[in-house]
């Protein structure tokens, strides 16, 4: 593989001689994607997928351990001297030469997404974390399936759709794909071609703010009437939903109790609960500091507002990068509203707020 690092025998021989970061320095002079143990990926191709959305085809080095369709990956880029990490869904299929694709939609004032969409060039290097996420396919899928995608929620579902298509579409699959405007739709040509070619795949495009609609497009949001019409056999379906938190909550309310199986991932951070007033004291045991922070915010934002930079990834409670042990105090999950008064070994800072004073291993 062109971006492989030194073979492991060489690694073992070099270990006592050279520190990994020194090895990385010299390796990167020879090839920007080489590293002792970090998963680096070079940008091979950059193509515009829709308005404000690009697909990046990346060639990782051998330290990237692969992925399953439907999974996500933490991507790290250096912007103005600072390394930023955000989670993106892998949109392609596992490829024999190891290359992967992510599709990025530019968010207003989003530093990372703007960098990836507008400034990143072919040949640039990004760092990847290991793939994660449970919204994957079983070994042999059966029964009818429904994918509910809104906005950039299409990205993991596109990978799953491609995986089923590559497998000869072994199940009936209905994809309902929402966007505000037609220009924002990703993978449109491929999806329409698949729907035309594959009788077991049904596609419904839904545009909420477009005035003139094409033959295969419909207006409207997700509701019971639409669902009854497009998915009459919901009771026998497995439903995967992905999109902004509000959309996912609607999908859960409409289908979770009725469908055969329901799984969802929300792509926006939880809202700040401003109804929770006051401040709490957080003891950071590893650094020997105590801070006073507002109780209504996620712990990650609250700590960052104090100038700390805890490790983090997705900021929405799925990648676990920010998880740290809590030894005392009560927290509330901002997604579910559940409170937890027990000590835990991995509290996700990005989706939990403090209800009381806390002790964290940070």
């Amino acid at each position, binding site marked *: 593989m062109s971006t492989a690092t030194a073979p492991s025998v060489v690694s073992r021989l070099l270990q006592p*001689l050279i520190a990994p970061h020194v090895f990385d320095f010299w390796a990167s002079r020879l090839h920007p994607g080489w590293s002792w143990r970090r998963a680096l990926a070079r940008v091979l191709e950059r193509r515009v997928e829709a308005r404000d959305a690009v697909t990046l085809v990346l060639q990782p080095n051998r330290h990237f351990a692969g992925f399953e369709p439907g999974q996500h990956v933490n991507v790290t880029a250096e912007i*103005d001297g600072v390394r930023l990490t955000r989670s993106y869904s892998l949109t392609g299929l596992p490829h024999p030469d190891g290359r992967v694709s992510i599709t990025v939609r530019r968010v207003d004032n989003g530093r990372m997404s703007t960098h990836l969409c507008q400034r990143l060039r072919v040949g640039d290097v990004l760092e990847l974390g290991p793939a994660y996420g449970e919204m994957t396919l079983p070994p042999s899928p059966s029964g009818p399936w429904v994918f509910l995608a809104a906005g950039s929620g299409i990205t993991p579902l596109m990978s799953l759709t491609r995986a089923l298509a590559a497998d000869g579409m072994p199940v009936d699959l209905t994809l309902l794909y929402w966007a505000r405007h037609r220009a924002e739709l990703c993978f449109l040509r491929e999806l329409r071609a698949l729907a035309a070619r594959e009788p077991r795949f049904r596609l419904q495009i839904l545009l909420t703010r477009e005035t003139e609609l094409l033959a295969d497009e419909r207006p409207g949001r997700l509701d019971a009437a639409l669902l009854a019409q497009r998915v009459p056999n919901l009771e026998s379906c497995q439903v995967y939903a992905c999109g902004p938190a509000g959309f996912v909550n609607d999908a859960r309310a409409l289908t979770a109790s009725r469908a055969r199986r329901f799984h969802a991932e929300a792509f926006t951070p939880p809202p700040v609960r401003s109804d929770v007033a006051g401040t709490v004291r957080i003891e950071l045991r590893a650094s020997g500091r105590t801070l006073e922070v507002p109780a209504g915010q996620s712990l990650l934002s609250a700590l960052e507002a104090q100038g700390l930079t805890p490790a983090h990834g997705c900021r929405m409670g799925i990648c676990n990068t920010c998880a740290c042990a809590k030894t005392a105090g009560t927290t509330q999950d901002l997604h579910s509203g559940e409170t937890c008064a027990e000590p835990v070994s991995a509290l996700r800072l990005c989706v939990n707020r403090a209800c009381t004073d806390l002790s964290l291993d940070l």
Partner: protein
Amino acid sequence: MTTATLNRPLSADELQRFGAELDALRARHLADLGAADARYIRRIVKAVRYTEAAGRALLFLGLFPPAWVLGTLLLSLSKILENMELGHNVMHGQYDWMRDPTLDGKTYEWDIVGTSDNWRKTHNFKHHTYTNVRGMDDDIGYGLLRLFPEQKWKPFYLAQPLIAVIFALLFQWGVAIQELRIGRWWYGKMSGAELARNFAPVGRKMRRQLIKDYVVFPLLAGPFFLPVLLGNLVANGLRNLWTYMIIFCGHFTADAETFPKSVVENETRGQWYLRQLRGSSNLEGGPLFHLLSGNLSHQIEHHLFPDIPARRYAEMAPVVRDICARYGQHYNTGSLAGQFGQVIWRILRHAFPSQPRTAWA
């Protein structure tokens, strides 16, 4: 002249404003950190790596005397840059905002026999928090030398002019064992088992450094084993002498003050800044000199703002100096020769019994 007459006593209100002005300077620079600082520290990394590679390559031609001399000097330069401008500053967390794992203050490991973990404890925490507080800052004489009349005299100190020279030559070993506090074991305040436990990581680091410089690279040179070994020994020695000189000039000049433990109780931000200022002294010189000192030539600025990238100290210095002038505080600076001369005088003078002239007000 004593420092008491150099410094105007400040009222609580003045101290508060003094601290606020320094806080404002700090905030201005923190807000401005970015690509230029990242580029700078990467250039330093590059300089460290290339000078090391060139130095070691030249040493492989070590039978040719000019190559040996140049190779040794380049390797010394690499080690000095790595220890001072790169390692010391990175370990302060000056570049943590970049979130680059290779420049992470908590995990960086430097090219000397001491472990970074021990350094982060004795230096970053104890020395920088309790700067020049007697009994709390282990850097006052390093438990080996009597540099201030407030330290209790013992006959042992009569030998310190000689001990100071040996300490300078072996400075990296002194740094390596400082946190082990062997004295406590010697006087029976620490068990042998505890010392052995604390020594384990230090021993591993020492072994790694010794194998690298005195076994692996000499062996790689084949027939030039001896010149390479000697070159590495001299390079480590030159680095020891240079760092010793710079570091001693930082807190042991004539006007540098030490403080009793009581000062740290209920110390305000303004008082903390003032203590850092009065305990530190700067060195004057050009950009290259500042670089080679790891910007510890700006010891005052470093002690006021230890977590701000050191490349900014030169820009901060005139502002700090102006603030000091307006609040009637002495800004201790001078040439390397002048400041180090004062350090040597302290080493010689306080080998003999001496009395403090004025109490710190």
